[in-house]
């Protein structure tokens, strides 16, 4: 469960988040929908404790990430906007590195890596260095790395950005599986189809504020439009 309460964050004179509140519940996929520069990544960084809010707070399973960053991060798995892999390490080594950093070791960790590699269809790539991997393969490795410690809460920043159809399907399947396991999944996207296809709950962000929230159907109905895209444009302009 991720809760963001009245968060304000500015960089110098530029206000990135203004009084932003939303909730991402367990067993549900929550989508943060917004145009580029709307403040999605900043909001996710506040949740993961990388940025401190100027006002308000963000909690992960009731642990305030601004107060106990490590405590919040222990309950959290994050795939960042850029995959951020190490080109000279193999797929397995990347996952093992993050597992080790989280205090996992030995046969238990290796079994966990095997399961993730299998679930993401990375078997053939597991022992290869990621330098030559495609964009989709990199995303999958980053996803496996973020899930190595079996987190209850998962944040995905633009997870299917730039992926081909097959990879997108794999990622969607993983997201649905995470939901089925009762985890809290919070992901950001500017792609309407993505959000419409996956999310149980949508938070529309524009200019650092929440302009609307609800299910896809509710948002469409409220804006009096036929598609989510039209609804999004209407809601964003309204704000």
């Amino acid at each position: 469960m991720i809760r963001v309460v009245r968060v304000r964050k500015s960089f110098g004179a530029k206000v990135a988040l203004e009084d932003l509140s939303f909730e991402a519940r367990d067993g549900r996929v929550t989508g943060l929908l917004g145009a580029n520069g709307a403040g999605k990544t900043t909001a996710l960084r506040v949740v993961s404790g990388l940025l401190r809010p100027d006002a308000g707070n963000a909690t992960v399973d009731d642990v305030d990430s601004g107060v106990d960053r490590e405590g919040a991060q222990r309950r959290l798995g994050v795939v960042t906007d850029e995959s951020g892999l190490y080109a000279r390490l193999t797929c397995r080594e990347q996952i093992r590195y993050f597992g080790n950093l989280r205090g996992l070791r030995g046969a238990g960790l290796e079994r966990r890596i095997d399961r993730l590699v299998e679930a993401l269809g990375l078997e053939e790539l597991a022992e290869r260095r990621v330098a030559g991997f495609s964009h989709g393969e990199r995303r999958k490795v980053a996803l496996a790395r973020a899930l190595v410690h079996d987190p209850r809460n998962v944040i995905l920043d633009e997870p299917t950005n730039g992926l081909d159809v097959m990879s997108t399907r794999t990622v969607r399947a993983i997201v649905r599986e995470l939901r089925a396991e009762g985890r809290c999944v919070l992901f950001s996207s500017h792609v309407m189809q993505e959000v419409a296809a996956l999310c149980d709950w949508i938070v529309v962000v524009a200019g650092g504020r929440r302009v609307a929230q609800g299910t896809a159907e509710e948002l469409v109905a409220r804006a009096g439009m036929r598609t989510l895209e039209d609804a999004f444009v209407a809601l964003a302009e309204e704000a």
Partner: protein
Amino acid sequence: MSLFAAAVVVRKELVDSLRDRRAIVSMLLPALLGPVLVSFVLQQRVVEARSGDQVRIAIAGRDGEALAAWLQQQSGVSVVALRSDAEAAARAHEADVTLEVEEGFARDLARSRPAHVRLFTDSTRAGVEPKARRVAGLVNHFGAELAAQRLIVRGVAPSVIAPIALDRFDVASARQRAALLLNVVLGIVMVTLVTAGMQVATDSTAGERERGSLEALLLNAVPRWQIAVGKWLAATAAALAGMAVAIAVMDAALSRLSLEGLGLRFHLGPRDAMTIFAVMSPLAFLLAAIETGLSCFAKSYREAQGFAAVLILPVVVLGGAFASYPVADHAWVSWLPVIGQYAAASQVLAGKAAAFDAAIGAAAGNLALAALAVWLVARMLSSERMIAGR
């Protein structure tokens, strides 16, 4: 709190670097190139110092037979008679040194008037200066023998015109003379310390940030100081490895050179080599910490490399200052980085009593500064600028 996470970071950075050709090159190249360069320069000096032993002289002028015959008797000297112009012959490098005995040389000698000899060399030729000095000395010697004969003929003892006999002694032992060389060796070791850890320090901080992996790393519920310590120790390990290679190569190269011609002997042996390594190693910790810290301020990997490379300057300048000014006798000197290491290493190798204290002082000063720099790195890693400031 265990140091486990820091150890995990160290291992990962070292594995990563060992697969990075640039890291290997920057670790090994100065360590290999420095000793080779020094050996080459020293070898040249040995060759030059010995070059006076063998000399070929061309003599022009009809009156020069007596001088030529006398020179011919000196060891290592060969003489050829020259028909052409002496200056042209010198330009054409027909011999190492060309002498021109002037018209009327024999007549002037017979009349006890100064008889002129002109000596031509091309000073741009390598190794010609010691030869010219030797030939000039020989000609003067020839003159002195003539002078002595003239005095004897006139019933005067030749010692009358030699009121002072100057005998020169160099009391420096071969080992002390080698200490001069040691400063060069230490300088190369220092430069290696700067360059060997540089790639790891910059790549693991600025490089990581530039490639976007730092954000993912900082999400792992690990205290930032552990990440800072891990990256610092990885860079330190690379610097120490570079230094070990540099010392080993230096010792191997220099002990193979025959430096007796320069009046010195250089052979470290495992004990001295390890002493140098031990005395210099605190500097590896400090330089790696500074490089890691500077890299945190850099916006890109390239900028970080630029920052870190600037470190070579103070290291070399301080080394030069130490060699030029006798500051090593002051106790406070040993606490200064770089100078402290120079002082301690030279004292240790000269077998001086205070050496141990000097080495401890140098180590303490360095490690204190290194701790400060690592604390700054941890602060930098905690700042939002590292994530949002790109």
